[in-house]
């Protein structure tokens, strides 16, 4: 009896794979091929590497001029900028892919086959996460070359931070898919994703500036009110939007707190799963048609 049940289970899994898994895998392959043969992802890595080159050149200039520079991690600022840039690109790219295929009617066409909204979005999500891994490897290669060229040390924590940034990047891709699932057109989708990214980063910068401005504890003044508002809003957005996860994950990892960084990565992965499910529900609700 057990053998028969086992064979039945195996057959069920195989048929499920044939029905749903194979098309999903095919969509992932197709997506990966089309993104790897486009210039945009390479250009984003080039911009991130150029940012690193600029920052490192500045550090070298300080050593040259002052004779001395004490720094925790020369690649920290570049890494933050690079990962944020890649995450924003990934969110925008995922959103654009879905919105464009929806606009062109590809999604509708796929739905006549054995492709559900979830498996479609899962394919997009997986291909973009794999794409991020490839881009991170490219960026890491650039950082290694920069480290060799400058003699500035690329620390192990930087490498780990890059590896763990996959969590926040996956969350960013999931958010891009959710936005695309809720909005039909390409342009509003891209604008919404970029607006969310810039809004989060802008809020973070405003918060950093405002907390540095002196404000007495016992006086209610405009700085204090603005600071309170920025802290309150950013404390919400840092959990609701994936770009806050990038900041948290990198700052915790660069401090050497591996357990903390792992927990942020896990939280980002949970966020990605929840948002992906919401995106599938959203796509079902808004419809697959143009």
């Amino acid at each position: 009896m057990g053998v028969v049940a086992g064979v039945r289970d195996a057959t069920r899994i195989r048929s499920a794979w044939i029905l749903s898994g194979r098309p999903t895998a095919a969509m992932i392959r197709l997506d990966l091929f089309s993104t790897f043969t486009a210039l945009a992802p390479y250009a984003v890595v080039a911009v991130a590497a150029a940012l690193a080159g600029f920052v490192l050149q500045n550090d070298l200039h300080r050593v040259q001029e002052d004779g001395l520079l004490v720094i925790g991690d020369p690649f920290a600022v570049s890494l933050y900028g690079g990962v944020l840039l890649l995450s924003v690109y990934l969110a925008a790219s995922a959103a654009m892919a879905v919105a464009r295929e929806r606009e062109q009617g590809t999604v509708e066409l796929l739905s006549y086959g054995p492709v559900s909204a979830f498996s479609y979005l899962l394919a997009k999500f997986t291909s973009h996460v794999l794409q991020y891994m490839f881009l991170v490897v490219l960026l890491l290669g650039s950082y290694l070359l920069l480290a060799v060229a400058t003699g500035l040390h690329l620390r192990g924590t930087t490498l780990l931070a890059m590896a763990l940034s996959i969590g926040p990047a996956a969350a960013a891709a999931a958010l891009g898919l959710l936005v695309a699932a809720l909005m039909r057109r390409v342009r509003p989708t891209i604008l919404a994703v970029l607006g969310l990214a810039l809004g989060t980063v802008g809020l973070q910068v405003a918060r950093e500036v405002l907390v540095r401005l002196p404000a007495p504890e016992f006086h209610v003044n405009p700085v204090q009110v603005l600071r309170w508002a920025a802290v309150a809003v950013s404390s919400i957005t840092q959990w609701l939007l994936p770009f806050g996860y990038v900041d948290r994950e990198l700052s915790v990892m660069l401090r050497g707190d591996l357990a903390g960084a792992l927990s942020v990565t896990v939280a980002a992965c949970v966020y990605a799963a929840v948002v992906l499910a919401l995106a599938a529900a959203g796509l079902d609700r808004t419809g697959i048609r143009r």
Partner: protein
Amino acid sequence: MNRAVIATLFLLLSAGTARAQVPVKERQFVYGINAFAWEGYVGSLSARPPHTIYVLAGHRSIVSARETLVYFWPITGEYRADWSGLNASVDGTLEVLQAGRAVTVLLRQPYVIQYPNGPDSGLAVLYVGEEAARRYRAFVEARDQYRDALARYLEARRRYLEALDRAAAARQRGVTVTLPPAPEEPGQFRLFSSDVHDGFLINLPQGHYAIRVRGPDGRVVAGSQRTLVAFTHRREAVGFTIVPQTRWTVPERADEPGSTIYARRDQVLYFQPYAAREYNDLAYARLVNPQSAEGRSDGWRWEYSQSLVEDRLQLAGASGVQTVTGRPYRVEQKTGEALGYEVIEPPAGQTSDFSGFKVQVQGTLNLALLDAAGRPVPGSERIVRVPRLGTAWPLGVIPLLPLTLGAAVVAWRREQLGRTQRTREA
């Protein structure tokens, strides 16, 4: 008419200015705080509106219940006390509560704060109870003895100078005179002491507390409720102040144990090690000044607790392992037209400007402070690296490599598509 208007306006304006220069003083219950900090005991005020008092956990601080005249000083944006106008001690006991439950009840006791090496030196000692009165008496006696010794010295010096004048005059007359011995100046009197005051001695473990004064009538003194935070450090390490020989007036700090020190080849650096503790930025800023608007609740700062220049510094580089001992150094301005200075070891009898470990950077160095037993002090390990300071062109070329790869992939793809199209057409 115009003159009259201008004169009236001027008078009105000056009257306003005169009013603004006299702040309104209000009689208030305040806490005078002498909080332990690593730079010495810092005196501050906690007036109304009430704000949180911060103290270092596990260290002794003093909180005094007083009545004084409080005014707002708009220039610094702080409330200040006019102690000379009113400085009345408030009777009662200090109740310390945690989560609504009384932790301890403190009685007032006399205290004195003394600085054995002078008021500007960091080392401060707090004496309480009978010891405070005894120490203060000893201070007064020592100060009086020094004053008498100084007076005697000045008198002796006056006589000595007169004797010198007489000897010079006698020599002019051709008479040989034996000079009296020069008087010896008494040693510098460095000890400094506060007067004996009374206050509540606070030494609490880490935590959030509420404090209030209960008067002799059994009622809580109005306005005496405050929140008190006893905080402690997050990490301990050895911090370094690094003085480059080329700009000794602008030292750098390497407090974070994971930080790397980048220096030019052949650069001479002087390392000054300190025992360091990492505190919350906001808490420490408010410890030093409870009314401070500085400090970040999510920020951290390293504070030096004591110099460790008596230890030895181990250097491990390509040329092997060597040990350096800390030495005093003197900075001398170069004479002549060329500006600059040089750092030298002071000749015998001359004072030094700073002490530290001299390190000549030749390449990558692993350094660590060694304790008396010759073991590396935890948290003192640092790496000194020499970056490549040559040409900058690789930094411009490297970012182009991913772009080149992308362009190659795109070209290959187009070639593939073109070939497929040609095959179909054929």
